[in-house]
């Protein structure tokens, strides 16, 4: 286990009351909703940022908003930290607990409450998985647009907390652009509704603030999201290039020409090989970089857009252009892309970076990224959302080798700084969590961060909600367990 990043020291008072707290939680909830045996807590000690782990004090798995409210009210009263957890697919350690915290898992709240086609909305419990919304409304010709690669497993609650994006967000926007309302429980147990089936709201855009707040402002228990009518057709096309730089430049030119496909995804050679091994999607193995470009609409529209893109790609010396010929093939192409991180596990452990850069800097940042990682004697695979400049270098290493693990973390930090210095940001969609927490001051000034911290305090003055995350532990107010 890595130990570069520290957690808040546990609150001694809370640890001392552990058995009372567990007994009290047992009174608040049905028996199947409480996990507290030490053995059973172990699987909750981490999320998909598996290099870091902390055992929680207890885990509760409520069935409804009232139970969430009861637990939060209790924890508020006794100063017990809480860590919300959806599917635990966070790549930045957002759902990793701490010794004095109660994990509030939303996994039992997985019902779709209402689908309203006339108004194009779906109202779901927070533990509903992203994909199940599209699966439910798909037969009626609709879909829910944000499609993180983890959409099979990740929850809407987690998506809201991270403001998750995905391949198809180039055209349709990320979670915040597709979220109409939430029901959430504040730390003191108050239940509020923000937004609804209507657009915009009176007062401040608290919905916009909550989206992407990484479980620091409250626990979302229900969400109303926007549905979109499925396009007439959609077709992913593979463009193979002889260098990453050419592929990167091609992306910038496509967007620059005013063409906005639904998705432009990038894979370099190592990533192509990894994904092809799992999905057998027919990715070309004889190229250095691959773009998956998806166009959609009527046949005529797709043709028109494709021919413009092909023309631009030719200028960048594209080596292969392959259109998917069937729905099955298209599905395989996406399956390969969406399984990229997981499939990497076949060859090595990895950590995944998530910086975003302006498109004009894409080629440069790709090149520097390779240099940085190679400088540490490690390998990198790149697979990411190129259309919006959201890079995902996967740094490959051996987790059983502490020296390599430390190098991987160090390389990651340098890459993120590179992204910020190139005019971008630390994280485009995976969130800050603990992973990028200590780099926040590279992107923000102390005063900027302090302003964010103060807004956070308007919601949770005792710093009980997911307290070890997002904001560097240094320089926090006293209440936040400043160190």
């Amino acid at each position, binding site marked *: 286990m890595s130990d570069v990043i520290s957690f808040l020291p546990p609150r001694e008072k809370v640890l001392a009351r552990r058995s009372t707290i567990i007994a009290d939680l047992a009174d608040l909830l049905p028996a199947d909703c409480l996990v507290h045996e030490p053995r059973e807590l172990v699987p909750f000690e981490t999320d998909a940022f598996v290099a870091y782990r902390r055992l929680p004090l207890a885990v509760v798995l409520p069935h409804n908003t009232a139970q969430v409210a009861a637990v939060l009210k209790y924890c508020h009263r006794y100063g017990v930290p809480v860590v919300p957890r959806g599917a635990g697919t966070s790549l930045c350690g957002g759902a990793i607990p701490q010794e004095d915290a109660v994990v509030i898992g939303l996994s039992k709240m997985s019902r779709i409450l209402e689908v309203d*086609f*006339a*108004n*194009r*909305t779906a109202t779901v419990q927070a533990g509903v998985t992203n994909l199940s919304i599209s699966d439910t409304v798909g037969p009626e010709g*609709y879909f829910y647009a944000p499609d993180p690669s983890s959409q099979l497993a990740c929850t809407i609650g987690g998506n809201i907390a991270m403001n998750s994006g995905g391949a198809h967000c180039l055209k349709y*926007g990320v979670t*915040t652009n597709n979220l109409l309302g939430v029901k959430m429980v504040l730390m003191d147990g108050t239940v*509020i509704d923000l937004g*609804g089936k*209507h*657009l*915009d*709201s*009176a*007062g*401040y*855009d*608290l919905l*916009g*603030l909550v*989206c*992407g*707040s990484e479980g*620091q402002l409250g626990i979302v228990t229900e969400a109303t999201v926007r549905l979109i*009518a499925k396009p007439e057709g959609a077709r992913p096309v593979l463009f193979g290039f002889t260098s990453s730089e050419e592929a990167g430049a091609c992306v910038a030119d496509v*967007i*620059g020409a*005013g063409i*906005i496909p639904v998705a432009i995804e990038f894979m370099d050679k190592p990533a192509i090989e990894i994904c092809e091994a799992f999905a057998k999607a027919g990715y070309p193995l004889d190229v250095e970089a691959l773009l998956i470009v998806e166009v959609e*609409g009527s046949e005529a*529209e797709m043709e*028109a*857009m494709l021919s413009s893109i092909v023309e631009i790609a030719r200028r960048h010396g594209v080596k292969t252009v392959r259109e998917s010929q069937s729905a099955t093939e298209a599905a395989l192409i996406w399956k390969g892309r969406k399984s990229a991180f997981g499939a990497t596990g076949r060859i090595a452990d990895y950590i995944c970076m998530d910086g*975003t850069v*302006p*498109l*004009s800097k894409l080629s440069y940042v790709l090149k520097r990224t390779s240099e940085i990682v190679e400088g540490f004697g490690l390998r990198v695979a790149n697979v990411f959302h190129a259309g919006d*400049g*959201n890079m995902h270098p996967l740094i490959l290493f051996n987790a059983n080798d502490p020296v390599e693990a430390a190098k991987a973390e160090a390389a990651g930090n340098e890459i993120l700084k590179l992204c910020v210095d190139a005019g*971008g*940001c*630390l*994280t*485009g969609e*995976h969130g800050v969590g603990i992973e*990028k927490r200590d780099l*926040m001051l590279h*992107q*923000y*000034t102390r*005063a*900027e961060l302090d*302003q964010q911290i*103060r*807004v956070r*305090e*308007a*919601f949770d003055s005792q710093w009980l909600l997911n307290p070890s995350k*997002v904001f560097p532990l240094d320089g926090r107010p006293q209440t936040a367990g400043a160190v």
Partner: protein
Amino acid sequence: MSLLLVPTREEEAADMIRAAAEAKRSLAISGGNTRSGFGQQVEAQGVLRSAGLSGIVAYDPAEMVLTARAGTPVSEIEEALAENGQMLAFEPMDHRAVMGTVGEPTIGGIFATNTSGPRRFVAGAARDSLLGVRYINGRGEVLRAGGRVMKNVTGLDLVKLLAGSFGTLGFLTEVTFRVLPRPQDQRTIILSGLDDGEAARAMAIAMSLSVEVSGAAHLPESVRGRFLNGNLSDGPATVLRLEGLAASVAVRAQKLVATLQSLAPISQLEAEESRVLWQEIRDVKPYADGTMKPLWRVSVAPTSGFQLVAALRLQAGIDCFYDWQGGLLWMRMESEPEGELVRHVMHQTGGGHATLVRASDDMRATENAFEPLPAAVLALQARVKQQLDPAGIFNPGKMARS
């Protein structure tokens, strides 16, 4: 109102705000002041205008991102965009005609009010295009939020919080936003003769098709004549806009017509007329009538809009039309009914929020311009405001009657 402050540099603005905060002197924040009649009346001891902070800072059409100082006139931005075949996706309305104000709307004002037009229901609001801001908080600190890239989840999204905060949380000095290619072609499909309920159904059907309708409005008989100089065909008009490549627009129009033709007689507007019509819808042309008759803007679920109007008509004289697939109501009141009535009926028909956009000074003094919020949310907002503007100097009373 006394002191007028028009800083020309960000630091100068910060000094002014810091001084005001120390002296507990309140400031009305304004851009072009084209909508000063909007919201609650602000009683402030000074006015801080963004007009001196003007000009485009960076615009790289290939990146589709534009950065401008907050006081930059919207017209200047639109010109620059037009030159490059680009546009603001959210189609901000021009309030001058309807409000009877003069002056130049500013880009900062647009984002401070989160002003969005007809395309909002599919392409997002102003806040969805806003990538980053520079602003000055109530302590006089110059800060940034967001950035200039499309995807950014680093820290709390204060950009969203500041958008639509009507100058009550911070003074915007610079905004960075995403722009989009201007569609090559557009046309409007008109269904004639549908009543409000039938229109809502027709619009819902249109939105269920894969034709990417980018504007869906219903213009009842009473307002129809006030669009396109009275040249819109007879009877209530339900209008659906299609935009994109010319070939694609034609194909989609065919498909739309084929599906809807059983519902009503259909006619079409070609690009130029279509563009004018949607601009008039955007700017609420029928009610740019030189009066101060109360004008409400109500946002509800699309299928409850016409129900709300029907229920309200039983108790009040209203003239109205619908945008956003029926979910945005522009209602001009013939008498001055209490906002309470509008809101009561709205909550009975599914909820939403009603904003009093225009009214006589008397009415503004007694009416909540913005939808009153539940106590818990109000308390939360007050805490948020306290954290950005601890001395409470920005636009006191703007967002809620105290």
